[in-house]
């Protein structure tokens, strides 16, 4: 079967959304089911068939969702009702809509730093980290205290700190800031773990 010429193909649009909380890595198929469920639940089968949502890329904590041109608004509203993906709580924050996937990719892909001749050699520290990672030894995560309980820091970005209570009883994520920890006499933590 030959492919249709461009003028006869249906026009598509792509929506870029960030997956929150940071560090959550759902499977592409599971995320598609979550989005499809949300769209069908809100708009019904007939409208969902017109929207034809599809997850076309899932990388760097971002997802690119395809829809038919003219149905971006409906899909965006449906995306705001996505609350979980296979019992894991998530939230999709829409960043942009575009006609090509490539223009959306340029928004979230890390920019490559051009190599210069005067660039210093890579530090030996990074090699050590790689060796440790290769051996499968998990890095020790920093701990902190909040309301007299010990927490493990799972994500830290600027002021934002995500923690999980130490132990196996309560594994819910708490969303705090560095100020919350400092006020409660917690450890000082670096920006990157």
């Amino acid at each position: 079967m030959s492919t249709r010429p461009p003028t006869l193909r249906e026009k598509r649009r792509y929506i870029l959304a960030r997956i929150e909380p940071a560090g959550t890595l759902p499977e592409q198929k599971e995320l598609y089911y979550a989005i499809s469920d949300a769209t069908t639940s809100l708009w019904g089968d007939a409208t969902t068939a017109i929207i034809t949502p599809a997850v076309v890329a899932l990388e760097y904590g971002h997802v690119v969702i395809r829809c038919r041109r003219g149905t971006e608004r409906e899909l965006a509203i449906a995306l705001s009702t996505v609350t979980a993906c296979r019992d894991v709580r998530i939230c999709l924050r829409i960043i942009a809509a575009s006609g090509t996937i490539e223009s959306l990719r340029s928004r979230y892909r890390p920019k490559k730093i051009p190599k210069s001749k005067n660039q210093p050699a890579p530090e030996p520290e990074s090699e050590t980290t790689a060796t440790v990672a290769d051996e499968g030894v998990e890095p020790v995560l920093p701990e902190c205290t909040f309301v007299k309980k010990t927490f493990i820091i799972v994500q830290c970005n600027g002021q934002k700190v995500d923690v999980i209570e130490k132990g196996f009883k309560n594994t819910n994520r708490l969303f705090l800031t560095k100020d919350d920890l400092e006020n409660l006499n917690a450890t000082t933590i670096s920006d990157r773990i």
Partner: protein
Amino acid sequence: MKITDAAVYPYPLGDASIRRLALEAAALGFDSIVAADTPSGTYGGVEVRSGLMIRDVPLKDVISSVKRSKDSGKVISVNAANNNFNRAVIGLKGVHILRGIQSADKLAFDHVAAKMAADNRVAVDIDLSPIIMGRSVARQRAIHRYMDIMVLEQRFEFPITLSSHARSLLDMRNVRDIAGICSLIGMDVPDVERALAGVGTVLTAPKQAVTVIA
């Protein structure tokens, strides 16, 4: 005009600290939030207003609670119940918002209550969580009830507030998403803008119809 989320629940009611909620609110395009059981303040450029949410108590207790917190600067809101209760609450001086209208019975908020709300500048809260998190019948009921509220609002012009009732960062939505969700209940962009500024509207004193100059 301050864009306000009329109800969020920080730790320990939710899983995020008030500072983190304020940071997130700023990123989502809000100027202020009303937080339950939290002192007022400003974090990350977002004004946090202290909110008192009264629910599931008889009218006598509502009156005493409102009297206690009248001049505390808190945003006082009462959960809706039956029609008589709602009319009595709307008539109380010091009450700012009537909440949970989607869970009250069908006749809980009628045209008389709407007229009273407009006269006393008591806002009716539109809780977006049943639309965001609810599915099937629960969501349909909420949408239907809110559409009914909007019909009364167009007629009597009482204030409306919008709230996410977020207990987590993941429950909060940005202003554009809120506008999209509100379009499901028949609100257009000017309506949404007015509703997002609803908390500011009920907290400012109304302009006198006649001003005595000398």
